[in-house]
């Protein structure tokens, strides 16, 4: 059949046999080529960020993926399917219609952590505050701040660089653990602060007025914070033993000291939503 084969004769058998198998081979090869092509062509840093969040989110433990509407008891138990992005979640809008807006009330202190009402919260322990100058200030919430304390090392995005919601906002190293803080919104970095300033980034949001539906209001944030503290317990001492921190008492301002070094990685991973 192929060149250089002495006295080889084609038969119906060959046609069927080779037909089938080279067809299969073709399918396999073309599929893989398509996959590669798509991967290469559709590849942009921005897209990569979203992609990463999607895969990460998939791999988060179910406990970390609960829908925000559990918090207010609007639903028994529901695992989020949109990677915490309620902006295009019809379930979210449905819930909102059914149960109306959110009450703004309650004690701003939850389990020893401040949850001020003047800002919106992201599940990655960042908050967003609308400033008069139209910019958005992004900072770590109280728990996040306590966890991070004074980072050993911080790498903030350059002014002018873009943020993608659920993408990387900035990175820090604490107790030898590498931490990625997730960005709560899409936008362009205008200024950078730090642990001392009490805020980390000032961002010019993409859309004006920026759509913040996917962020938690203080009202939701408070029960959420309670949960987070529980998760923190679990993360620090999975076997349920060891000192439980922040049980009513004032939290030490650098929680990280209370985290056993060998667990640090797990704990930060769980709290800052890295699988």
């Amino acid at each position: 059949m192929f060149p250089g084969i002495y006295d080889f004769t084609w038969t119906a058998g060959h046609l069927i046999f080779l037909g089938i198998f080279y067809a299969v081979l073709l399918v396999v090869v073309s599929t893989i080529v398509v996959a590669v092509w798509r991967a290469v062509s559709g590849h942009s840093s921005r897209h990569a960020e979203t992609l990463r969040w999607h895969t990460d989110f998939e791999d988060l433990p179910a406990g970390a993926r609960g829908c925000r509407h559990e918090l207010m008891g609007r639903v028994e138990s529901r695992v989020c399917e949109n990677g915490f992005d309620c902006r295009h979640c019809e379930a979210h809008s449905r819930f909102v219609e059914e149960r109306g807006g959110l009450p703004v009330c309650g004690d701003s202190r939850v389990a020893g952590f401040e949850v001020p009402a003047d800002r919106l919260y992201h599940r990655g322990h960042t908050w967003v505050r609308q400033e008069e100058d139209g910019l958005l200030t992004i900072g770590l919430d109280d728990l996040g701040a306590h966890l991070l304390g004074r980072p050993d090392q911080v790498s903030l995005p350059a002014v002018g660089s873009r943020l993608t919601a659920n993408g990387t906002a900035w990175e820090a190293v604490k107790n030898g653990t590498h931490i990625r803080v997730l960005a709560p919104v899409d936008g362009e970095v205008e200024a950078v602060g730090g642990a001392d300033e009490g805020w980390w980034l000032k961002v010019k949001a993409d859309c004006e007025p920026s759509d913040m539906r996917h962020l938690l209001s203080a009202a939701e944030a408070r029960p959420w914070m309670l949960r987070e503290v529980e998760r923190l317990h679990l993360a620090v001492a999975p076997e349920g033993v060891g000192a439980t921190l922040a049980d009513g008492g004032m939290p030490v301002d650098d929680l990280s000291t209370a985290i056993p070094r060998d667990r640090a990685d797990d704990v930060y991973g769980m709290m800052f939503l890295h699988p």
Partner: protein
Amino acid sequence: MKRTEPKSRYGMVIDLDRCNGCGACSAACAVENNIPPAQPGVNERTGLTSMRVYRASNGRAFPDHRTVYFPVSCQHCGEKTPCVSVCPQNAVDVNPTNGVVSQVPARCLGCRYCMAACPVRARYFNWFDPEWPEGMDRTLNPDVSVRMRGVAEKCNFCHGRWQAAQAKAAAEGRREIDFADYVPACVEACPAQAIVFGDLNDAESEVAKQASGSTAFRLLERLGLDPKVYYRSERAWVRRLGDTDFAMNERQAARG
């Protein structure tokens, strides 16, 4: 691989009443086909004997014990030749003009499927690299290439001699070869002239006559593979040894 019925069918008849197991056919085959001598440690299970003589008996005790010798080479099956149909890469070739089955060593990858398929175990595997005592390679037959280790091989009715006979016929402007020019080594070497070789389709030929005789039979005929090697014997118990219902006795088992 639709096989049209070949014009002629080369085959042989082996007279078991003449054969007394001298083994000359085996040796002649080795000389003609450049089959190397045994390496140390080779035994009857790993040897290379394209023409192999088996010793069989009527299974009776002394003094009624009688033995018979079965020279067994490739039987050149005609119907759904087992080794041809199983070879994954066409390394077994059936000559369309004379039905001779032959191995193409250069194509063989040594999967040995054909050996598992062969009912008479007439296929052999080159377990070793071919090796002759120093200098003896000057006695090799130039018409047959030496097989490398790792391929299967078998009897092909001395293909080299067939080619020579064809060349001769062509040179003399004949279309048919003369069987005087084409005598396989084993046939030529038999001191008792127990083997007759020729074209089974030629009713006039000695081989066809003997093959159609009442005392002629073939090995494992009922497998329906239509081999082209016939045997003959006047002794009924010898003819029964060709049947498919293999005997089972302890002494045989002990050989395992």
